[in-house]
């Protein structure tokens, strides 16, 4: 009983995040945006460092930097001679490098780097939960409302545009939803593992789903299972929480892959 009480807030935040992770993760898998998620996550280090330096709110700063990185990518893609993953590589590692430099010059250094990299969901507080709830529910709702357009655009941007979908607008919507969700989810599994929380449930759901919307719903469900059982396992065996969640998710993926033969 004590355990459940202790874990209720972390679990709640994980389940809330799953609502957004299902649809967004599926879209990331279909559109091959895993590296984009990583880049946004890496930029969070810069966000945290800036928050320390400027004495600003952590979540807000991380969110702003994440949006900034999404915007920079969009600018860099314009008439670029490189593939998007090269540009992402440049952005991602620059954000990491600048983040570490800002860290080193910041007078206030009371941040657990391990917590930042791998998450500290057990230390989550009510203010963070409210942030997570707001962002996750908003992202899940927006994705649901614009689902048809987002899926059609994923099939073919030309086709979607010819049928009146504002492709640029929706690309922006998707990028900023992913950026903000990633930034918000960092306390849960940390910078290095956040993309896993989006990608692995969706990849697992592929083996059970017959339609795009099924895949999003099943992914959200699998993500919740991973968080709930990962947290119980982490506390029970005294393991780090974020990594345990990811290992549980990967087990789900492996089992699904072995037992399911989808069309």
């Amino acid at each position, binding site marked *: 009983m004590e355990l459940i009480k202790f874990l209720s807030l972390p679990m709640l935040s994980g389940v809330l995040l799953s609502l957004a992770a299902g649809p967004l993760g599926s879209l990331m*898998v*279909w*559109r*091959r945006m895993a590296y984009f998620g990583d880049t946004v996550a890496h930029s969070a280090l810069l966000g945290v460092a800036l928050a320390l330096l400027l004495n600003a709110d952590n979540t807000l700063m991380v969110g702003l930097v994440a949006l900034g990185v999404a915007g920079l990518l969009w600018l860099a893609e314009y008439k670029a001679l490189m593939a998007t993953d090269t540009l992402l590589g440049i952005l991602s590692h620059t954000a990491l490098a600048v983040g570490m430099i800002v860290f080193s010059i910041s007078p206030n250094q009371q941040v657990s780097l391990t917590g930042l990299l791998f998450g500290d969901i057990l230390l989550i507080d009510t203010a963070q939960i409210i942030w997570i709830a707001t962002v996750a529910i908003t992202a899940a709702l927006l994705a649901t409302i614009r689902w*048809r357009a987002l*899926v*059609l655009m*994923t*099939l*073919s941007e*030309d*086709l979607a*545009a*010819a*049928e009146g979908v504002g492709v640029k607008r929706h690309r922006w919507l998707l990028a900023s939803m992913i950026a903000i969700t990633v930034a918000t989810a960092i306390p849960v599994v940390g910078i290095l593992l956040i993309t896993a929380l989006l990608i692995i449930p969706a*990849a697992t759901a*592929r083996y059970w*789903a*017959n*339609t*795009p919307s*099924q*895949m999003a719903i099943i992914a959200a469900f699998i993500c919740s299972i991973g968080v709930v059982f990962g947290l119980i396992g982490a506390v029970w065996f005294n393991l780090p929480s974020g990594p345990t969640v990811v290992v549980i998710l990967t087990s789900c993926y492996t089992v699904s892959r072995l037992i399911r033969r*989808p*069309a």
Partner: protein
Amino acid sequence: MQSLIAADQLSLTLGQTNILDRISISIEPNEIVTLVGPNGAGKSSLVKVLLGLISPSSGEVHRHPSLKIGYVPQHFNVDPSMPMSVRYLLSQASNDGIDAIAERLTISHLLDRPVYRLSGGEKQRVLMARALLLKPNLLVLDEPAQGVDVGGQVELYALINQLRDELDCSVLVISHDLHLVMASTDRVICLNHHICCHGLPTDVQSDPAYKALLGERGAQALALYQHHHDHHHGIDGDVCNDGGCDGTH
């Protein structure tokens, strides 16, 4: 009724390259227009500008307020990570009449197949079915004959012709395969960055010399050869009735 699409003096420049050069074109209700030209002539780009997918560098496009487009793009690649059957893809356009249209396009046996497993020709027919389910008044087909054998192409164009009458819609077909489309098209526009000629095949077809020229498989190569290398003559004087083939470009 007004034109569905009317474009005036469209130009498109990418970097140093002139893709489209002062093109004026219109598509009227219930007509089949075929856009022909060699590879790299800017056919797909012109269609994308007409549909509003890319903005022209200069010039204007007017689209009729009632315009409803059914577009079949040239490229359509679905990632295998997307779980989607053909039936689901079609149902996203409309749930009414899927089976009838599937039978019409001989894709009934494909309805339960995942979209990513379709071959090129199958994909074309599925996308055409999807476009038709939207009940468009303009059907736009970008190289519909790609990946389809000659027999299939004849059937395809016969079908396009029937559909135009049944649905009362216009059809814009892009093709580099001139001779097959000639019989069932109202107007042919030959594009090689600029409009080098356009004309009404109905007039043209009564000309025995022209029919002889285009009625055979070999005529296609000849027609395209002239496009590539010789704008002084055009295909035939009768087709170049708008003065586009006088070699002044």
